[in-house]
């Protein structure tokens, strides 16, 4: 066994890989060899720390020093100063957005301080490509425990007692789902992991798969034991190449150690897992559509009942759980249902992972106890709004979710409160919006998405989303009619009650929630032909404020259509007829003399 005095963890999740962390690892290894430190200091590739905005991220143990935005050029200094002389390189440390004080250790950083990591507990701590590191942190002991000490019924009872609800969207109690499948008659049953994380702006499942793939494999085997299945499938998006690679490796390693395959732990239980790649169809995140896709057909949903627990994959009893749901299972078995149920609110137990993105300072991945308020997430963890602008809304739950306004910032987030607010947990994407975001445009954005992804099987979704999109487009183009709002509401209600699957049923949510909280914006678009946020191009006009214009002529030189004219040192004028509203003049003006309304 090699003994290294120091471990350097570098994130190789999608975020940091995009920030060039691979090249960083190669250079660091080279530098260490040059300084003769390669036997003292070990470089470890880990999964996501969650703080993607600061990538590439590097953490040095045993001190736990957190370096961010490290470039290849910085490495020589880190090796010379930190690894040879023991002096922390101050300029690479993190400092809070609202202060200049540098923070050395990463558990002191505000972004991490308010978090409680359960599903993500191994992400950024272990090397996901080494099954041994997962085992060293009690991995596969939960599987050992259920096989040695528990009956399938006891496992299901434990999951039920924990209060775990599905993390993929609907929030159905996981234990009950398992119980239905366990009780369904059938010689062959299946366990399916839904890793088709299609919601735009959501990446928690990707991070779990990249950072802790074995947790999902272990959980699936536990589920297999509980319901009496010996085959599992993971349906993962092809858009996540790193996750696919890590899962493939993890399955191989687990098979090699006999943790998947025949007669696991010599207890007579067989379980194996196959990987299925999605092919770019959002609707396949819906469980019945996902199953048809695994079967190798067009991923179209079908009516429920029968539910998959009775008739699922190839008509056999099947459970489908999402990645994050599975990631909680081994921890519940190890630490007990009571431990898990001690976190969260009355009806939503445990923690929830959220992907924090949009107009916020600290973007990344966070995990907090259920019931944490939006304010804590946006201001304490997220560090507030980008450029200190005003918070307007947060969009939660993707195309099936809704927008939550500032007035509800203090609402504790759980499944039921979100539904009451007109949104839903969805898979947990949180997109923060400021005053520069137009809510009508956002509703249109989501409708364009659902319209595009509608599989076309049922008319309410196929035709209904098309009509709603047409109305929204019309409004953003300044051609809205007074009756449009009523028509949108009527259409929304019909689609909600008549569409075949969740994709269609929830597609009006972005419209209904923005209408509920930002009706005035719709009205401004329709009646006054104005876009208050200054987004909808057709409703904007650019003007030069005479008092502020110094007559430098920079705007006129940059105008692509020569719509600006004037004499040097006198205020310039924009010709509204010619102006194509590209905004180039506004970007260039140094005096803030151009106004967009």
């Amino acid at each position: 066994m090699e003994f290294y005095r120091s471990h350097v963890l570098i994130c190789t999740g999608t975020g940091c890989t995009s920030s060039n962390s691979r090249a960083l690892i190669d250079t660091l290894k080279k530098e260490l060899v040059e300084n003769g430190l390669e036997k003292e200091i070990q470089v470890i590739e880990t999964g996501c720390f969650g703080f993607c905005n600061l990538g590439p991220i590097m953490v040095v143990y045993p001190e736990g020093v957190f370096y961010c935005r490290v470039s290849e050029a910085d490495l020589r200094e880190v090796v010379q100063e930190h690894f040879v002389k023991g002096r922390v390189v101050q300029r690479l440390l993190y400092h809070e957005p609202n202060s200049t004080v540098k923070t050395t250790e990463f558990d002191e950083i505000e972004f991490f301080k308010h978090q409680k990591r359960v599903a993500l507990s191994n992400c950024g701590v272990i090397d996901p490509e080494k099954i041994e590191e997962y085992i060293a942190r009690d991995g596969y002991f939960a599987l050992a425990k259920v096989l040695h000490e528990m009956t399938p019924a006891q496992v299901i009872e434990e999951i039920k007692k924990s209060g775990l609800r599905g993390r993929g969207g609907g929030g159905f109690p996981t234990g009950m789902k398992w119980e239905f499948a366990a009780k369904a008659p059938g010689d062959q049953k299946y366990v399916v992991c839904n890793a088709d994380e299609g919601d735009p702006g959501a990446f928690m499942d990707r991070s779990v798969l990249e950072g802790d793939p074995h947790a999902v494999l272990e959980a699936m085997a536990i589920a297999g034991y509980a319901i009496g299945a010996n085959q599992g499938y993971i349906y993962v998006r092809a858009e996540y190449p790193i996750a696919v690679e890590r899962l493939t490796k993890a399955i191989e390693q687990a098979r090699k150690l006999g943790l998947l395959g025949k007669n696991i732990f010599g207890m007579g239980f067989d379980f194996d897992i196959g990987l299925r790649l999605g092919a770019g169809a959002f609707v396949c995140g819906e469980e019945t559509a996902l199953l048809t896709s695994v079967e190798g057909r067009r991923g179209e949903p079908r009516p429920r009942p029968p539910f998959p627990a009775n008739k699922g994959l190839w008509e056999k009893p099947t459970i489908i759980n999402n990645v994050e749901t599975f990631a909680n299972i081994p921890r519940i078995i190890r630490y007990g249902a009571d431990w898990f149920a001690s976190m969260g609110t009355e009806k939503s137990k445990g923690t929830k992972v959220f992907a924090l993105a949009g107009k916020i300072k600290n973007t990344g991945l966070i995990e907090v106890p259920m019931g944490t308020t939006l304010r804590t997430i946006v201001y304490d963890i997220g560090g507030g709004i980008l450029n200190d602008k005003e918070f307007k809304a947060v969009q939660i739950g993707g195309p099936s979710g809704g927008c939550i306004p500032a007035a509800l910032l203090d609402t504790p987030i759980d499944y039921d409160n979100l539904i009451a607010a007109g949104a839903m947990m969805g898979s947990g994407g949180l997109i923060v919006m400021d005053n520069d975001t137009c809510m009508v445009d956002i509703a249109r954005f989501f409708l364009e998405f659902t319209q595009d992804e509608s599989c076309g099987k049922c008319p309410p979704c196929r035709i209904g989303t098309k009509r709603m999109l047409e109305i929204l487009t019309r409004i953003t183009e300044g051609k809205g009619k007074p009756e449009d709002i009523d028509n949108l509401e009527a259409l929304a209600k019909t689609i909600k009650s008549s569409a075949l699957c969740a994709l269609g049923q929830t597609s009006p949510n972005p419209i209904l929630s923005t209408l509920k909280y930002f009706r005035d914006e719709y009205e401004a678009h329709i009646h006054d032909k104005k876009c208050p946020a200054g987004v909808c191009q057709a409703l904007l006009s650019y003007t030069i404020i005479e008092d502020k214009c110094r007559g430098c002529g920079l705007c006129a030189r940059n105008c692509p259509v020569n719509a600006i004219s004037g004499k040097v040192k006198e205020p310039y004028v924009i010709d509204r007829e010619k102006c194509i509203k590209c905004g180039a003049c506004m970007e260039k003006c140094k005096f803030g003399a151009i106004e967009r309304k």
Partner: protein
Amino acid sequence: MSCQCKGEAGQGKKYAFIDRIIERHKDEKGSMIPILHEVQQEMGYLPEDVQAYIAQKLGVPLSEVYGIVTFYALFNTKPKGKHKISICLGTACYVRGAGKILEEFEKQLNIKVGETTPDGLFTLEGCRCLGACGLAPVLTVDEHVHGRLKTSDVAEIIAQYKEEK
């Protein structure tokens, strides 16, 4: 790498690699989608005669293969440019200005989204969320992800891949 077979090759012999892929999956249930993935990986796209070939080998109607190929966004029936520029149009990227980046590419490459440049060098696409929202707006060129983009980065990215050829 990529097979240069043209349309008349439907008769079979030229697609030995497809036979190998099908052979590998023969005992697997529901193997159609994995097979199409692998064939596309080799060829870059799935022209009609290839679809017909696969249908015949698997003993299913061509309509079923065609139905699957056209249902899923990742399967292409037309050849793509040498470099594929995919701009993420997920929500996080959208609110951080991905639309402007896309427009800039359209302008500089002088093609619309979904099209390929006449020299066959670039295909421009909008794509679904890449899950790199922390770095929004992002795009991928082939397998490489570029993040924290500004419209001023566009020219540089194009130049970089032009040089690589």
